[in-house]
């Protein structure tokens, strides 16, 4: 089983999924991230899924769970880099990724998380919601 590396940049944890995600790898990532959030006191988790060719219900649930667990641990999760075909398939599959903030790429994801820091003066949930409902219209 592969393990996905979790990188720390300031108070953000960065995960880039570049392998075809096996179920046990996804579960391990969920646990690793929870531990690293507590260990580092990170306030943001950025998950880059540009390498993922599919997001099925299991991977979708993993992403939602990571976002929920992070929220309980006082960290915000932003998912970036979803491929267009993956987005279309997700919607048809019936997955809504409730509670997960998204941004188009790592840059925008970092900007979103940057604005969420306590010093940034923005209420975390409000900013996350704004960004999630504003796909750049």
């Amino acid at each position, binding site marked *: 089983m592969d393990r996905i590396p979790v990188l720390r940049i300031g108070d953000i944890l960065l995960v880039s999924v570049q392998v075809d995600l096996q179920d046990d790898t996804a579960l391990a990532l969920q646990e690793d991230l929870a531990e690293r959030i507590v260990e580092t006191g990170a306030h943001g988790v950025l998950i880059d899924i540009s390498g993922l060719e599919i997001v099925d*219900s299991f991977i*979708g649930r993993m992403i939602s769970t990571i976002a929920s667990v992070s929220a309980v641990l006082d960290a915000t999760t932003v998912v970036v880099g979803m491929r267009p075909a993956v987005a279309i*398939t997700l919607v048809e599959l019936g997955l809504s990724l409730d509670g997960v903030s998204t941004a188009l790429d790592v840059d925008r994801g970092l900007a979103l998380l940057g604005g969420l820091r306590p010093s940034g003066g923005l209420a975390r949930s409000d900013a996350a919601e704004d960004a999630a409902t504003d796909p750049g219209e």
Partner: protein
Amino acid sequence: MSTSPAVLSQETHEIASDSDVVRVRQSVRNLAIDAKLSLVDQTKLVTAASELARNTLVHGGGGRVTVEMVTAGARRGVRAVFSDHGPGIADIALALTDGWTTGTGLGLGLSGARRLVDEFDLVSDPGSGTQVRVVKWTR
């Protein structure tokens, strides 16, 4: 669907572990590319195959899949038949309902997979296992 399509290529994979599910995805993806399905259709088919392979593993106790490139008239397609000898599904209509779950997932695997493909057949007898056949055609 009345005339059975001609089979251009065929491969069979055992499904006995998480890594086999990934292998099935790759195999289906490769055939979908060879059959010239669009990128969105490839992604839909591979996602459906992933759901069904996981069902075979988790609910069927493992099994196998036969992946084929098929042709009918001017169209090409990819067909995948998943079979297991698990406990079977007692109420197929219920199992195909959105949100119905055995408790471990979101209840979107089977119903979602059906939405992502062009043809979907499920045969199951309690006690003798389950067979699911899906096809995705070029447009």
